[in-house]
């Protein structure tokens, strides 16, 4: 191929690099350094370079399965015999601030039966028969506490720690803290995220560098078939084939190198030159990872890809596994926005659970079979739970005061229930895990100290947990 570079400038690439290395070294006052140390230095100023965590990490990455709308804990993972005995009776405690004030009534027992399962014998309701089979891998936290009574506040607190300000999301903090080992894919990916209730603020990098921003794969309103056409915005070139595009990129870089000759002192120019090379590699790599078609039939069946009910979330879970295999640091799947059963709890929760139960169990089994569950932390949670009192006779209102989530893999104690709610299932009782605590604990599992993972902004140091957060070592294996 014609070397455009030599036509447009006299300086070949290699000599440019070493000259740059010398200049950079001289500019920093360290004397002459070789290429190796120059690269090491570049890594220091690169926010995405992989970093070793503060203390030994139990998990290397996170898959967050988010149930948008607020699944009911007392109908899934936290059985309440009291409600069976007192069905239809008034709530004997003062009701805290609630969303649908004035519409809630008497205590309502769960319409589902709980069954014990596995060696640990923890009960799970009939909403999740497949997940129930994996109970020995789960650490169910029954004592989650948040402050958002409405969805917007609750989502923002779950993902950013606060609903008062725009702050970096947990995935951005994790990526900022750990960097990424695969530069051909974004380090933080959120699949079909919710557009409502904070929308992109739930995966934004806030004041952290833009490079740790979550990358959205479609959004909740899109169909998988449409997402597959271009999973990441601007990923696909429609005009040129790869070889032609490479040739065009050579031209861009030739123009850039000639321009760089004029502005030899400006390192930023080289950074932008490199960003194009990385983008070019990303185009090819990312498309391979997003293509699930070559997975075996058995795998597709495991995730429920063949059933239209489970196909959507199954695709999300399968993609999550592929991204995990490719060292994406933080992956989120969202089942949006279905779980908000102010009415019609029985029918709709049945429908929702049926869409996610098999894919989730499939993911857990698949990760385990591939040895990925050891260092992948899987989290299942909504933004809050639901009230033990009924709303309108057949629904439940929002309850952030005591709800359940579970974690699996990545250093958590398997087959355990941690914490509890009061006998009604309204308030967290033992081992209350506030969302700040949850964040501190997740960071700790990744080897990060939530008090030390800080970023200076607007004159002071900020962290995900603000001034709160306790690591709950009780969930550690």
């Amino acid at each position, binding site marked *: 191929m014609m070397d455009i570079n030599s036509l447009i400038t006299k300086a070949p690439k290699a000599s440019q690099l070493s000259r740059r290395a010398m200049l950079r070294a001289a500019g920093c006052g360290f004397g002459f350094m070789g290429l190796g140390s120059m690269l090491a230095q570049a890594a220091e100023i690169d926010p995405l370079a992989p970093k070793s965590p503060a203390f030994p990490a139990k998990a290397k990455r996170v898959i967050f399965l988010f149930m948008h709308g607020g699944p009911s804990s007392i109908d899934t993972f936290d059985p309440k015999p009291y409600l069976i005995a007192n069905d239809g009776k008034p709530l004997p405690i003062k009701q805290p*601030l609630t969303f649908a*004030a004035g519409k809630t009534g008497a205590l309502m027992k769960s319409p589902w039966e709980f069954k014990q399962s596995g060696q640990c014998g923890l009960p799970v309701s009939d909403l999740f028969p497949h997940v129930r089979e994996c109970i020995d891998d789960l650490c169910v936290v029954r004592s989650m506490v948040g402050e958002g009574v409405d969805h*917007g506040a609750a989502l923002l607190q779950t993902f950013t720690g606060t609903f008062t300000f725009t702050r970096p999301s947990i995935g951005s903090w994790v990526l900022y803290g750990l960097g990424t080992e695969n530069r051909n894919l974004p380090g933080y990916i959120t699949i079909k995220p919710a557009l409502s209730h904070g929308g992109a603020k739930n995966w934004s990098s806030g004041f952290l560098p833009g*490079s740790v921003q979550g990358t959205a794969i479609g959004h909740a309103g899109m169909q998988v078939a449409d997402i597959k056409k271009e999973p990441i915005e601007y990923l696909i070139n429609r005009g040129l084939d790869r070889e032609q595009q490479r040739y065009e990129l050579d031209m861009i870089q030739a123009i850039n190198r000639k321009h760089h000759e004029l502005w030899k002192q400006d390192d930023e120019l080289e950074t932008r030159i490199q960003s194009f090379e990385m983008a070019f590699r*990303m185009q090819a790599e990312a498309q391979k990872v997003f293509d699930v078609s070559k997975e075996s039939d058995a795998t597709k069946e495991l995730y429920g890809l063949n059933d239209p009910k489970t196909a959507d979330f199954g695709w999300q879970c399968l993609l999550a596994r592929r991204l995990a295999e490719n060292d994406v640091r933080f992956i989120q799947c969202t089942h949006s926005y279905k779980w908000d059963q102010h009415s019609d709890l029985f029918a709709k929760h049945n429908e929702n659970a049926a869409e996610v139960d098999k894919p989730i169990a499939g993911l857990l089994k698949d990760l385990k079979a591939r040895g990925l569950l050891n260092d992948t932390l899987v989290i299942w949670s909504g933004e809050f739970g639901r009230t033990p009192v009924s709303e309108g006779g057949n629904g439940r209102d929002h309850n952030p005061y005591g709800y359940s989530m579970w974690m699996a893999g990545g250093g958590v104690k398997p087959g355990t229930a941690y914490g509890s709610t009061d006998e009604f299932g309204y308030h967290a009782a033992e081992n209350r895990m506030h969302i700040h605590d949850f964040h501190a604990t997740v960071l700790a599992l990744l080897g990060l100290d939530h008090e030390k993972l800080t970023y200076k902004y607007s004159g002071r140091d900020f962290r995900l947990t603000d001034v709160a957060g306790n690591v709950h070592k009780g969930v550690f294996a």
Partner: protein
Amino acid sequence: MRSFLPLTYFAFLAVGAFSVRGQTPAQLEIFEKNARPIFSDKCQGCHNAKLKSGGLDLGSLAGIKQAATEGFFGNASEPEKSLLLEALSYTGRVKMPPQGKLPAETIAGLRDWVAAGAPSLAASIEKPAPEGPESATSVRPVALRGIITEGDKKFWSFRPLAHPVPPHVSRTDWAENPIDRFILANLAKSGIEPAPPAGKTTLLRRATFDLTGLPPSEKEIQNFLADNSPHAFETVVDRLLASPRYGERWGRHWLDVMRYADSTGSDEDHRYPHAWRYRDYVVQSFNDDMPYNQFVREQLAGDILAADQKSGVGYRGIVATGFLALGKKALAQKDLPLKRYDVVDDQIDVTAKAFLGLTVTCARCHDHKFDPIATKDYYSMAAIFASTLSYEKGETGDPIQTPLAPAAEYAAFEKAWSDVLNLDKKIADVIDFDKQATKDRAIQEKSISAYMLAAYRVYAAGEPAAQVAADTKADTKLDERKLASWVDYLKVKTRPELAKWHAAGAADRAKVADNYQQEFHRAAYQYDQDVSWWRQAYRSFPAAGKVAGARPVVSQEKEPFFYAVAASESPRGPFYQSEDDQLNTLSPEKAAEVRALIVQRNEAERLAPKREIAMACTVKEGPTMDQKVFLRGDYHNLGDPVQRTAPSILRVNAPSPEVKTNSGRLELADWIVDLRNPIPSRVMANRIWQGHFGEGIVRTPDNFGKLGDRPSNPELLDFLATQFMENGWSIKKMHRLIMLSKTYRMSAEYDLDKKTKDPENRLLSRFPRQRLSIEEIRDAYLAIGGNLDLAMGGTLDPGVGTDGETSASRISMNPESTNRRSIYLPLRRSNLPTLYMLFDFGDATSPEGKRNPTTVATQALFVMNSPLVDREAKSLADRVLRNKKDSRRIEEAYVSVLDRRPDPNEIDAGLTYIQSMRRKWKGVDEEKAWQSFCHALMASNEFIYVY
């Protein structure tokens, strides 16, 4: 929500340059880290100076000190025996805090604190450390309780303006413009020569992007190159300042500071349907060169000014208060006082940052740790905004919208349309067509696969319909008439949406039918949701029938199956139900009643005024709030009453006027622009400087406090601030002054020497290279392709209210879908365009006086692959191809994209590229090769950076 400083801050404090009698930094740290946050978070609710539960006050340092003297913290050698730890350990009679035992680590932390002798800051901060001139390391905490010291008054930004005289310089060519004398004197101190003048094309590109956000046209380049007069550049600057494009560029700078967006941001991200009027007001004000003092007054108190006929402000003033009205709002927040004061907090934040360069909102919970802003200062400002209404009913109701029309005209308009709405509601009371349709569909969708399979037996196997209907087991019984229409629908083999159905074999027919049922379910759910959200918008705004936009319709293109089955009237879909069909389910009397109402409603709609009344999102005066300090930001916990006024440190130079309006907003505005007040002119002069040089003289444009940057050239800043006021607060005169300086016209060149001596270019030893903003990048691409639409103002987003949870209209408009300038694209706070986020646009939620450009691979993906860039490259290629000679084509491409002519090497390289493109690949024609070449130029570093 409380906001505490993080622990790392306390660690920093402990090593800071202040001294406290008898306490080591380590001891203080243990107090700040282990004890104070716990007291503050867990104990102060009851144990405060006011309630003094159990005789104990852990809310003030005096109280803590007293508790120590009373022995509450026991003996350092036996911490476990102290009353504190006994209560915390839950072992004794008293168990604290009552909500639940603290985590073991927290208790252990307090134990360590007791063991360290229970040290506290006490009220023993010694005389403040002398104020180091302007060193950033000399920050120290202010005395608690907001006492203002002499040191505070002398802090650089609080001092009166210095009226500095430009220094004498020896270089005569740099002696003319006072700015140059300040810059040169500073450079001379460091032994640096200024850079030589920039070349003409470079300077033109710089100035044109700077003032208009667009590249110069080929003709403008030619004219400038041909103009040999010494005033050639002056002519350019005047031309650019007079261009309407100027307001679009500099208005956008201001909108960043104003955290402008078109939606509420929190929870459902409701639209502000009239936000754009404020945006247009800003653009217009910049184009008109409205004096800055008037601009400030209108934005803070335009409604009050408008009420005064003599002011001549009129409706413009009402629109201007959009500044206060367009912040983040959590409409679903159920804690109503919090909901109100979160809005107040946003208004204080943006007012203080934008006009005063101060961060004051930390004083919502505690005295500012570094700047002399006490909680009472914060609540003095809160008193002003709490006496201003942002929601119709103070804490509830819609965000305020004000008609820009005489009251009587608006009343008639609203009355007519609420009559229509009321009739709608009356109809819905008898039969709610939409709800009924949703209900019907819920039943229908369970039977779709049954109907399809049954219909197959009829039309393909020829079984009798009646029998098939009778023996099919479905959730609902099959209706023979409906089955017949399913047969009619399904037997047509040419319908594209039924391709999969007709391709199905016996083995998978049931599964395919099930898929169709799922598809119907999904589409129906989405459609019903869209309708329900639309109805909510339709019913919830004044005269909303006019502005809620059109009722959603089922898209035949996107949802062909759902459309054919349930929405197509002709041919009639098997599950299609007309209004009449629905009415026929009612008793004849009820149906007649509804029919009569429909006639009435349509008549009312016919008579209602059709000309929409312009509205604006605004605030308005409310009852004067008897505001008290909220201790630790908690509105349950009331402290001393406060006056409606500005922060006390700023009243040192300019006493605030007596408050005569309800809220005090007008008085606040008048005080801000009081000529004796040194901060606002400094802040704005710095913003203008930053607009030209990328960085301000103070590099933290929104923070002139102690944690902010110190001015790199304080004399120059004061000179500019003084000039600004003396020139009648004219922003355009400031541009002229700055741009005609030698400093502005320097080249961006630098060598190793300059890089070493002035690494960050704080001294301005050369012109700073700047990256184009996303608006400039996008607008310039459109301009290069010749497709930029220069229409000004108005809205591209006619909707109101919110959209369905999963609706794509929740995302801000796709920047690829319009050719209007970027400033006119509506911004949905919760889902800003990916493109904007990629290029460091900011969050449009908090005031942001400066963007921080990053360089990441995903930006390169946009440049390489975006259809917009592709399209504009093609458009440019088509244009250059009109030239006959290849070399002339290359020249035109260079001039269009990079605003300069190519050198011979570059022409050769371009020709080679195009030839080899065509030689190597079949299918790459002349146009495609040129498009690729243009694309390469548009992707280059030289394009995206301005020198």
